[in-house]
Each structure stands twice: as C-alpha cells, then as structure tokens.
C-alpha cells in the first residue's frame, strides 16, 4: 500500500506542474514611444487635493501611461517633481500669493452656529489642509526647482489654457509659479519647452481651463472666445507636429465641467429654494428688500428661493438647476442668513445675497456648455484633420455619473463617496487617473493598432479615509 501511495504521489507531483497562460503580448506596432511628451494643465500635471504634491505627480495620468509604454519601447518619463508630500497650492491675493498644503479628509464633529458640537453628536468628512506651514516655507517650496533635472516629459502646468501655452513670461516670477519652477528660462513658453524636446509621441489634453476657470469663479464671463481657442488650439497641435521628429500623438476633448463634484455636491444637500418662511417673516423681508430698493424680489409664505448676486452685480432669486459651488460657505447660510438677510446686523438686518462667485446659474451653465461644445468640435476636427488619436473624455466621464466599476472598485462622480475625485472635487484621485490613463491607452491602441497594456486599477489608491 505504501508503494502504491508513493507511486501515486510522484505521479501527481510530476503532472501537477504549473498551468501557464501566455502573458499579455505587448506591441507598439511601429509606434515610436521612446520620447513621450505630455502637454496639459493640472489634470495632466498630477495636481490633486488642491495642491501639487509628490505622490500626486507620481500618479499623474501621463506618468501612468508612460509606465505602460515601457513595455513597448517607451523611454524615461521625467516629471518636474516637487520635493514635498504636503505639496503647495495657492491663490492670488492682493500683493502676492496665499499658499497652502494639499487637503486630506478629516472626520470631525458637526458644529452648530456657536461652534459647539451638535446634539446628538454627528460626524462628517471634511477636507482640510494636511498641515499649516509658514507662508514663507510654502512659497520657497513652490518656487524651488524640481528634485530631478530636466528636460521634462510632463509639461503639464496647473492653470494653463490654450493661450498660456504660448505666453512668453508665463514661466517668469510674474507668470505662473507652477511653470516658473521648471521653465528653461523666464521667457520660454510651455510650448517651446515641449517642442525643443522633439517628441516621438505627444499627448495634448488642454482647454479645460478655458471653460473651467470661468466656471470655478462662478461666472461665464471668463470663457476663452471661440476664435482665440480655435487659433491657439490649432497652433498647439501643429507646433507639436512640426517639432522635428514627425511625431504621432493623442488629443482629448474637454469634459462637461458642471458634472464634477465641485458643482454638484452642495446643491444636492442645499435646495435652491431652501428658504422656509411664515407670512410674518415674508412680509418683513418684503419690507426690508423694498427699503433697499429691491421690491422686485418678492418673498412669500412657504418655500422661497435664495437671493444671489449675478455676474453683472444685480440681485436675483435662484432657479431650479442653479448650482452652488463647493467653496460656498454653507455655515453662513445656516448661521448668518446668507441668501436671505444678515441677522447679525441689528436692529434692522440687511439683505444678504449669496455672492455670485458661489453660484453658477442656469444661464451661465448654458453659455459654458455651448462654448464647451464649440471647443470640443474644434478639438475633434483638428484631431481628425491631423490624423491623430482622439479620446472622447467628455463622453467617458459622463458614464461615471451613473457609476462605473473596475475589478470590483465602484466609482461615480459623487464627492468623497464616489471614489473617483480627490478632495478638491475637481481633480481625480490616483484610481481616477488610472482609469483615465487606460482610456487614453485604449484610444491609442485603436488608432495605431498597437497593443499597449493597461494599468491595473487595483494598484492605485483611492481617497484615503481617516
């Protein structure tokens, strides 16, 4: 019996050898990816969580793509890495910049208007700065040269528009600090620094800020005009094509900016007509608004729309579909009467419209949407006439509104719980960057007949919960 057992065991071990499957057969199909240069804005620079920081850059869309390109002859992909994980974000203020670190999620007590935790205790996720260094420290980090030497394959500059790709001085101390930190000279343009690298393959995802920057400011007044967009977009593509090595490339259109959490989150919680009044309160407000010369704004018993300031400075009542921005101080609504009347001013309160920068109203959205569609037509036509690969990011990101799933990871466009966006509600988190990079790779494979492997989404982190 022992003998039989021995024979059987040997037989089993011999035959139970590894069952192999052929590995993914990567092929460039003649595509030269040895010098891959990416031109874009914050979405391609690896900016996330309201700042430019090290691991954000390491998880940038083009860097994920470049990592996959390495299986088919892709070369080194140098990025202008910032030295800190805390990172730097900034806002222009009179006389300079106000800087801050990246934001992370905190899980803290909800407070009432007096700043005391509400009873019964509830907690919620609130994005907040990871630390609070001195302004001078942050400024120094912002302008410090990258930790690796150039030239930089990732020419993504947060804030860049189609026009600023060609601004001399955009890389100077008077320009954009995010470019000044790695421009080859203060007068070099982004496009110049990209073109001199003579890419063998380029990636251009630009134009978002030509609509987004205006939308983020709660207005349609800052949109790039169509002729300017057409001129500079065409110039950008043609400059890259004429850079010397006869490159191939991929371009992408602009996603619908109003579907991102930055514009949808507050409006889901705070209705546009969330002012509930009894008849005495309504009468009082009508009196008050008349006093201030706004008898056109009528309050009534029951639900009333908030009042806000339009871009032209006039006051108006909100309408269904108007969007509150993520920057909106909802505490001021709850505690100070923003959108109604400022109760802190006594004995007679003052009308308190919501500042226009916190509201993107229906007309503004329609104008932005119309301009976006025009820009996207330009992008599509330029891609088609230059025979470039094209990624329809607008359609793709729209699919996330109803939810997508990758290897068991569910993602949608909800803020925080959606798992796609970072804590700033505008930029993607690493998992979001990975699925986007894979979408670009698919578009390249479709156009050029290559078989570039996609990245595994499960290797990238989503939002980190405390």
């Amino acid at each position, binding site marked *: 019996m022992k003998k039989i057992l021995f024979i*059987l*065991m040997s037989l*089993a071990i011999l035959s139970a050898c590894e069952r192999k499957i052929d590995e993914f057969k990567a092929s460039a199909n003649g595509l030269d990816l040895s010098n891959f240069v990416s031109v874009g804005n914050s979405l391609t620079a690896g900016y996330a969580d309201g700042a430019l920081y090290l691991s954000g850059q390491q998880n940038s869309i083009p860097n994920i793509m470049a990592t996959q390109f390495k299986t088919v002859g892709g070369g080194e992909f140098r990025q202008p890495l910032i030295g800190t994980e805390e990172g730097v974000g900034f806002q222009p203020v009179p006389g300079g910049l106000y800087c801050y670190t990246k934001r992370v999620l905190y899980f803290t007590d909800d407070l009432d208007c007096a700043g005391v935790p509400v009873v019964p205790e509830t907690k919620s996720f609130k994005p907040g700065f990871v630390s609070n260094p001195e302004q001078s420290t942050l400024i120094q980090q912002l302008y410090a040269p990258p930790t690796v030497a150039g030239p930089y394959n990732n020419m993504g500059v947060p804030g860049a528009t189609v026009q600023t790709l060609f601004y001399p001085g955009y890389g100077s101390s008077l320009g954009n600090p995010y470019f000044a930190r790695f421009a080859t000279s203060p007068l070099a343009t982004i496009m110049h620094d990209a073109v001199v690298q003579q890419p063998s393959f380029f990636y251009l995802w630009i134009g978002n800020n030509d609509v987004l920057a205006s939308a983020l400011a709660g207005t349609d007044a800052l949109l790039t005009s169509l002729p300017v967009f057409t001129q500079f977009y065409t110039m950008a593509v043609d400059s890259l094509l004429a850079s010397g090595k006869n490159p191939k490339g991929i371009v992408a259109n602009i996603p619908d900016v109003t579907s991102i959490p930055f514009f949808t989150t507050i409006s889901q919680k705070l209705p546009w007509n969330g002012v509930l009044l009894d008849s005495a309160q309504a009468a009082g407000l009508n009196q008050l608004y008349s006093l201030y010369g706004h008898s056109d704004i009528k309050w009534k018993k029951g639900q009333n729309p908030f009042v806000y300031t339009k871009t032209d400075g006039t006051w108006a009542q909100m309408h269904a579909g108007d969007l509150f921005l993520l920057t909106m101080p909802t505490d001021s609504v709850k505690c100070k009467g923003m959108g109604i009347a400022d109760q802190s001013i006594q004995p007679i309160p003052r009308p308190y419209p919501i500042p226009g920068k916190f509201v993107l109203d229906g007309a503004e959205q329609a104008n932005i949407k119309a301009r976006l569609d025009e820009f996207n037509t330009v992008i599509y036509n330029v891609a088609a006439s230059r025979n470039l690969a094209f990624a329809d990011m607008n359609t793709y990101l729209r699919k996330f509104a109803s939810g997508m799933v990758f290897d068991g990871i569910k993602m949608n466009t909800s803020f925080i719980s959606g798992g796609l966006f970072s804590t700033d509600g505008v930029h993607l988190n690493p998992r979001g960057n990975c699925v986007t990079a894979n979408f670009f790779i698919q578009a390249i494979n479709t156009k050029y007949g290559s078989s570039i492997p996609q990245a595994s989404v499960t290797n990238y982190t989503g939002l980190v919960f405390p």
Partner: protein
Amino acid sequence: MRRFTTLLLFLCLAATTSFGGGYQVGLHSVRNTGMGLIGTSLSYDASSLFFNPGGAAFVNEKWSFSGGVSLIFARGTFQAKDVNYQATLKHELNTPFYFYAAFKPTKNLSVGIAVNAPYGNRLAWKDDAGENWQGRYLIKDISFKAITYQPTVSYKFKEIFGVGVGLVYATGTVDMNKSISAQGVTGDGSVNIKGNTSNFGFNAGIMVHPDKGWSLGLDYRSKIEMKVKGADANFTVAPSLSGNFPANNKVDVMLPLPANLDFGASYEFGKNKQWMVGLNLCYVFWSTYDSLVFDFETKTAAVSRTATPALYTDQMIVRVGAQYKISKAIIIRAGGYYDPSPVKNDYLNPQTPSLTEVGVTCGLSVNPFKGFSIDAAFLYLMGAKRDGTYSPENFAGTYRTGFSIPGIGLSYSF
C-alpha cells in the same frame, strides 16, 4: 475496523475543492474514480449507498465497508484582460473523503450509512506581491465545504429490480476573505465571513438488471438549501468608516447545493465477466444557483442585502468507463468524462473559476484476500483555458486550471 477509524480521524481534517463544473465534487469512490467516475448502475460495494441507493441491496455480502480519500493537487493561473498581469491559484492540498458502511439483515434488504463530501470549494489567489491580487475586491480566499451523512435503506425484488432511499443530512461551513476598496491610511479594508449550517435532503434511486450482464440505474439527489444563519462578518476598515462597516456584524448567507439526476448503464461480459463497460449521464440542476445572497443583520449605507449574481445553467456530465479483471487479485480500470461549466462567460467569477473540463482516469484494485480490496485511482484533468468576465464587477481575464487527483481507498466485504 481500526484502519477505518484511523482513516476517518485523518479525514476529519480534510477539505475539498471544486473542479470542473461549479462547486460539485465527484470523487466518491476510488474504484469508480478509476473508471471515469461512473457508478449509478454499479453495485460492487457499499459506495452504492451514495451513487444509487437502489443498488445497495445487490451487494452480496452481509457486511460491506468502503472508505477512501482523494488528494487534489490543483493549479490555476489568471491572466488579466488588457493588463500585463498574472496571478496564481495557491497550491493547496485538498482531500475529499468518503466512508460507507452497509449491512444486510436479510438477503434482499440492505441498510447503511454514507458519509462524504459532494460539494465544496476551496481556493486562495495570490500574485508575485502576495495576497493582494487584482481580484481581491471579489475574493481573496474561500473555503466552503458540505459534508453529507446519509442513512439509507435499499430493497431488491429478486435479482431484477432494486429500490432505495436515503435521508441526507448535510452540514456546511464557509470561511471567506475579501478586500474592501474603501481605503484608510493602512490601505484596503477587509471582511471575513465565517459560519456553518445544516439542512436535509434525500437521495433515491432504482436499479434494474434486465438481462444477463446488463445493469441500469437511475438516481436522484435532491437540492439542499444551505442557509448559513448569523455567520460572523468581521469588517476591518478605517476608523471613520466603522459606522458604515460595523466591526462585528452578522450575516445570513444562502447557497443552494443543486439537485442531480443520474442515469447509468453498464454491461459485464467475457469469461467470468472479466470486462465491464459503463456510461453515466449526470444532469445537474445548476440553474437553482441564481445568486449568492448576503443579508447583513446590521444594515448600513454600505452593507445591506446583496445578491451576487451567479446565473448558473443546468448541465449534463457525460462519463464513460471500463474495468478488466486481470486475475482474481488484480483489476485495472480506465475512463473519461466531459464536465461542462455551468457558468456563463460574462459571469465567470474568480470565486469559483469553473471551466469546462475533460478528465481521463485510470485505476487499480488489488485483492490480497477474499473480500478485501485496496483501490487506487488517478484522475487527470486536461487543463482547460477560458476567457471570461465577471461583468457585475467588471473583472475580466483568462483562467487556466489543471488538476491531478490521486486517490486511495479500501473496501472490505464479508
């Protein structure tokens, strides 16, 4: 008897794995394994209690015992679709066992008990970096096994017609781990689900010996609903998410063990009936496995009642086998079978990577003295390959598995 006791003690530590179709295991007698897993029309030993209670009364000896174990050496590889990534099924030795005892108080009546493991699934995935493989949000590892205890009566009318029925008491255990994609500072969350259950079913069959040498059998084993009530569901997540994923939750898990309808035909011929050839058609009512349902006791926004779609389809397993008696002391066997996967291409889940398999078998029995038989068998699955996606989780790739299954058993009748 002491040998059997020792064997049983060893087997108590055993576990099982699935291969071929779904999570059903076909290794219930080493003799039958040697000839393509056929058995519905056979009545050579006490294993008839399981294969076809209608045949048990045809076993001639007053007492008959049979026990054995199979050693499943499983290998599997996964290649992700469109991604340069492979993972392997962790090599774990799985050992489904069986034990049957039958007693004949009269010439035509047989009573007995069958203990075996007809359903089970045990696997663990890993890649070069460890357990955090690409499918970890679907499954990291799972161990599910059902052991059935089947007291049985069998009666034959003359030497022509036999009928039998057994009450099946099934016990099941489940233990599974997977990762949760909501991450904290230390990475993924995770959940372990662990519980056990039991339920009843039945096994009934008839056997007919219409003519010299011929035997026909028909057997039906009922479906058994395995509902694990109040299994432990232990979530490990970032502290801020503990409200959504309560740490010590309970969960009801529902998994059906499908019914089987088996038809078998065999024919003995040659000098001293030296030869036997047989065929089995086994219809498995897999469509009962619609989804794997998890119903959590403490319901939150993140955990409630979830049904993981399986959408299995009914399948027919075709088995053929033969045996040849070289002498009174030595019998050799061979066979093969075709086991189609009940899983649709867009529901192929790494939790049960069920592939259509073709198996070839061979076997040997040595009878050192009358009534005592040492049985050995070897089952080799050819190594199937299949592309599939588990579409509810968008998990796609190519699976390949291979199995080598030696088995050893003892039978004693007197």
